[in-house]
């Protein structure tokens, strides 16, 4: 487009640190609140679908459909309800995407508990609730965390689409860069989003190690 324009102007970055920090923070909030909300809803929903098998197919079917809806379209549909350029307009759809990934993960995780483990828990006198919490849940943790990693990374990258409706955290820089035919903000935005994603992923991998020490012991032996 513009042959003399360098890809990155460092002085622009230097002058915009406070602005970048503010948008970064906004981005993190809009990305992580849906993940937390999603996790809080997905756990009981997944447990219920694992307990009552009849719920499983419909739940996963609905989640599949939700997952297939383009985010921009969903933001737009929500605008009359929650308003233009509002955090909520972004957070609600992203919560649903998180659910779409996590509910099947919770169910699959619970399914992965071997039958003999479950039966020996029953034989040792665990009641259904205690068994679920003390035996099944810990074993399901790795699968749930794998789902959580996918959901978190997707959520972080999807927030930026919100810029098209006026609230996209770091996504603002894509619009800004486009309108001014200026590479630097676009590249800053892309790099920061990816760094955020990698960091969040790293934290979750660490959490997985801490929460499932037995898996690590097996890996090293």
């Amino acid at each position, binding site marked *: *487009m513009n042959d003399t324009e360098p890809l990155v102007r460092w002085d622009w970055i230097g002058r915009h640190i406070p602005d970048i920090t503010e948008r970064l923070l906004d981005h993190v909030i809009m990305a992580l609140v849906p993940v937390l909300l999603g996790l809080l809803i997905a756990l009981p929903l997944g447990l219920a679908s694992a307990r009552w098998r009849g719920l499983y197919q419909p739940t996963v079917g609905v989640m*599949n*459909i939700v*997952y*297939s*809806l*383009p*985010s*921009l*379209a*969903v933001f*737009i*549909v929500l*605008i*009359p309800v929650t308003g233009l350029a509002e955090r909520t307009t972004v957070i609600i759809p992203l919560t649903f995407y998180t659910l779409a990934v996590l509910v099947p993960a919770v169910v699959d995780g619970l399914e992965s508990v071997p039958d003999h483990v479950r039966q020996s828990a029953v034989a040792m006198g665990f009641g259904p609730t205690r068994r679920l919490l003390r035996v099944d849940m810990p074993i399901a943790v790795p699968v749930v965390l794998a789902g959580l990693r*996918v959901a978190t*990374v*997707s959520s*972080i*990258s*999807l927030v*930026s*689409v919100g*810029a*098209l*409706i006026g609230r*996209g955290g*770091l*996504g603002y*820089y*894509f*619009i800004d*860069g*486009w309108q001014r*035919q200026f*590479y630097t903000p*676009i*590249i800053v*935005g*892309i790099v920061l*989003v*990816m760094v955020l*994603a*990698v960091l969040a*992923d790293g934290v979750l991998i660490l959490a997985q190690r801490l929460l499932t020490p037995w898996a690590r012991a097996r890996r090293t032996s």
Partner: protein
Amino acid sequence: MNWLIEFFGTAANWSGPSGIPARLLEHVEFSAVALLLSMIIAIPLGLFIGHTGRGGVVVVVAANAARALPTLGLVVLIVLLVGVGSTWPVLAPLIALAVPPILVNTYEGIRGVERDLRDAAYGMGLRGGQVLLKVLVPVALPLILLGLRIAAIQVVATATVAAYVGLGGLGRYIIDGLATKDFPSTLGGAVLVVALALLVQLGFAVLQRAVVSPGVSRRVKSR
């Protein structure tokens, strides 16, 4: 609701180059071309890597990176770098986002076929290519189709976003409507996009039933 009636009820919205049928066709056309090109790149590569076992790490890294890539940023950057003017540069980010899910699922599908089955196929005297096409692909088909479905959904969504940098299609109603504060048009566009996404999903469900062997999906009428 009124907004929707206003949008869909306007006769002018149903004809001409910016009418709903034309826009829908455009959207489907871009998406189909992007998906097809992605398949041409990703399926042979995924089959090769899955079959030979070489380069699996690259695939996994690519898939993770692709998930973290912000679509809007990628679209804007590529079009700015390559230049506006024609439709083709806009296809590049669509393809860049569609290739990883196809690649990963094809690779995982082929790699995940039980060792015994592979051994039995070679032991019967099938050649490498026959093992791949007659045994591994049919068994991996559900996963390959899953990759295609994820890619198709991704493409439809990204094509919507790409209206921002000048691509035609249903995204135009959304972007132009937002710019001119014509909310009925924005909402109408969003509803059309949602409908298209659902149709794609349905299409893949039908395709899955048609091409996956009942022996693999374990779905058989009698018994």
